[in-house]
């Protein structure tokens, strides 16, 4: 690629512009056709320019379960999905509870993607995620972990959790908590309600989430230590977070595209591709989550990308593992919400770029004159069929499988380099 390039005819903040890239930096942003004529020019016919996105909650399965996903395929899906920053959860095998695992992950990511996307390991809060003893959090921080979480196995012991928050705070690591009361949620396969009763499946009540949300809020308030609440799925949690923020409690929260779009009816035919934890809830939860995102009560949107092998999902419902593969489809799904007028492009940029940058102190430059090129060119009108072949992730486990989605990343620049370009067929 030439070191000078014009990216022509793209929308930036609702304005059609040409972008002049020089040595990886944005030298000029101006009206179409007003830049130098003698440079290489790629015209995008009105596609959208978005800053590179951050996904703060991803399961890459590497080390240990590479048949589900590995760092290479996961990051490949990420970059094609518009993500330049990927936070990898600690539930690998072995668990990321010591320096050597963190180093392995970082080395592998750098080896395959020296120019990005960038991997940010999340440390296990307790050794082996067992909820008994703290992991060496200073060691993990120094090795390169960005945050800390006990992932899908929330710490039951409130005293230990309190001490973990304090200790992690000293180490400069924000605690991300999967909010689920382990007793109320035990053995559950879907949302508890009319549908679970009809299907004869053990349901997970929304209060299993909300109860843990309140514990976390009260601890954060008492200790005055920030906490981040993972994948919020229900209205009751939103109400609690709203209350906490109004009180000035240092709490932030995330949700996922699936909680913004789909309700429990997706599992009415025992569709294991829609089996996820927390489970898909109801219409009123969806509406509450959308409003919470618009109003900033929920700060960020993550994929909770949870790839599984096809045969693992091809079993009776309750036996299937939880999780939806999300990196490939997230942006298209969020675009559906923009088309529905439920979210704006600004909401997307705020929830997947600005806010994650703030919460995790990432150096996000945005798209501005003089800044390094960190952006995606996204064609909102390009339809694509979701098939095992079009998904870059090894995880084909998404309810979108077989459906047509709108919106695709055409190219992706990270730190001034073109790291992804959509192959034309």
């Amino acid at each position, binding site marked *: 690629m030439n070191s000078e390039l014009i990216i022509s005819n793209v929308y930036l903040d609702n304005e059609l512009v040409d972008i002049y890239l020089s040595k990886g930096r944005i030298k000029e942003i101006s009206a179409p056709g007003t830049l130098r004529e003698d440079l290489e020019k790629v015209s995008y016919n009105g596609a959208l320019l978005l800053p590179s996105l951050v996904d703060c909650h991803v399961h890459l399965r590497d080390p240990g379960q590479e048949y589900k996903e590995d760092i290479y395929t996961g990051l490949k899906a990420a970059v094609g999905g518009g993500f330049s920053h990927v936070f990898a959860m600690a539930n690998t095998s072995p668990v990321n509870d010591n320096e050597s695992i963190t180093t392995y992950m970082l080395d592998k990511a750098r080896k395959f993607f020296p120019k990005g996307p960038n991997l940010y390991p999340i440390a296990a809060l307790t050794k082996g995620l067992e909820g008994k003893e703290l992991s060496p959090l200073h060691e993990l921080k120094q090795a390169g972990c960005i945050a800390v979480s006990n992932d899908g196995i929330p710490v039951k012991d409130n005293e230990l959790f309190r001490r973990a928050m304090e200790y992690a705070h000293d180490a400069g690591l924000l605690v991300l908590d999967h909010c689920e009361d382990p007793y109320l949620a035990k053995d559950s396969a879907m949302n*508890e*309600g*009319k549908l*679970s*009763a*009809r*299907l*004869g*499946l053990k*349901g997970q*009540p929304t209060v299993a989430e909300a109860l843990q949300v309140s514990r976390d809020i009260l601890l954060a308030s008492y200790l005055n230590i920030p906490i981040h609440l993972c994948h919020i799925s229900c209205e009751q949690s939103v109400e609690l977070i709203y209350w906490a923020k109004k009180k000035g409690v240092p709490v932030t929260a995330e949700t996922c595209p699936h909680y913004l779009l789909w309700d429990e009816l997706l599992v009415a*035919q*025992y569709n294991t591709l829609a089996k996820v934890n927390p489970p898909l809830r109801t219409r009123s939860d969806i509406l509450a989550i959308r409003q919470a995102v618009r109003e900033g009560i929920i700060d960020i949107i993550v994929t909770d990308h949870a790839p599984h092998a096809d*045969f693992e999902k*091809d*079993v*009776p*419902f*309750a*036996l299937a593992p939880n999780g939806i593969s999300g990196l490939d489809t997230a942006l298209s799904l969020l675009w559906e919400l923009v088309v529905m007028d439920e979210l704006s492009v600004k909401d997307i940029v705020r929830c997947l770029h600005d806010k994650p940058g703030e919460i995790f102190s990432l150096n996000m430059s945005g798209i501005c004159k003089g800044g390094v090129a960190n952006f995606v060119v996204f064609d909102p009108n390009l339809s694509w069929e979701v098939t095992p072949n079009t998904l870059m992730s090894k995880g084909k486990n998404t309810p979108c499988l077989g459906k047509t989605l709108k919106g695709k990343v055409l190219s992706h620049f990270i730190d001034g380099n073109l790291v992804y370009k959509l192959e034309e067929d």
Partner: protein
Amino acid sequence: MKWSHKHLLDIEPLTREDIFLIFELAQRFEEVNLRPIKKVPTLKGKTVILYFSEPSTRTKTSFDIAAKRLSADVFSLATKGSSEEKGESLKDTVLTLEAMNPDLIVIRHRQSGAARFVSTKIKCNVINAGDGWHAHPTQALLDGYTLSKEWNNEFQGKTLLILGDIAHSRVARSDIELFNKLGTRVRLCAPKTLLPRHVESWPVEVYSDLERACDGVDAIQCLRLQLERQEAGLLPSLREYSREFGLCKRHLILANRGVKIMHPGPMNRGIEISSEIADSRESLILDQVNAGVAVRMALLHLFLTVN
């Protein structure tokens, strides 16, 4: 005769006509069961596999006898020693069974939705013989058939009480669906811990007091109490359960004259039902077992000869 169903997974897709057709056929087959030579050649050359990956005596025996009386070749797989137990997935197990070209598979499985799952994997007919807490359509049909004989096919204006562990009962779910279709009013009675959430949205009346629940009912289906419910913290003790929810003679006085007692079995005498009632003349418990064979013969006949 019209039968357009490929599988019997739950009661939901059955019309009233379907249900009465099954009852009518069952009556004809019941006559076969009374003959000295209890066999007809209807299903000669047809292969039926009974795949029961959960312990069962009555349902399995009932299907076995039903198929054999229709001259089908029956093969059954038991829980112990099944390849699923050796770690094979349900999908692979049923694909393996299908490769042997059966005409129909009867499946019992502890997972809700397992019968539907199987039906999406294979081409032959599937009959659900009970999947988790979800459905047990042949039990509901035999319950309906048993009462149809007592009630002379008049289901409307009658009230059925289902008593016991509704939350974990596939029998309750299928019974509710069936008797609703037939126009019978359904009441439930159980402690709240054994009722599903939002049960008030079901087409039933819910009672927590057994005496009140029995007032004016025409039949009572008493469900088996699984002993592990106590361990799960849903009940303090079997003693307390049987004192509050165990069906005994004094309840029958409150019911309508001619009240009938049913139980899908196996019974815990003295817990959910008093021994006296189980053996009383109001009890249809053994009639249910008898009806089970006839109803299953009717279903096998419909699936394997009509469609």
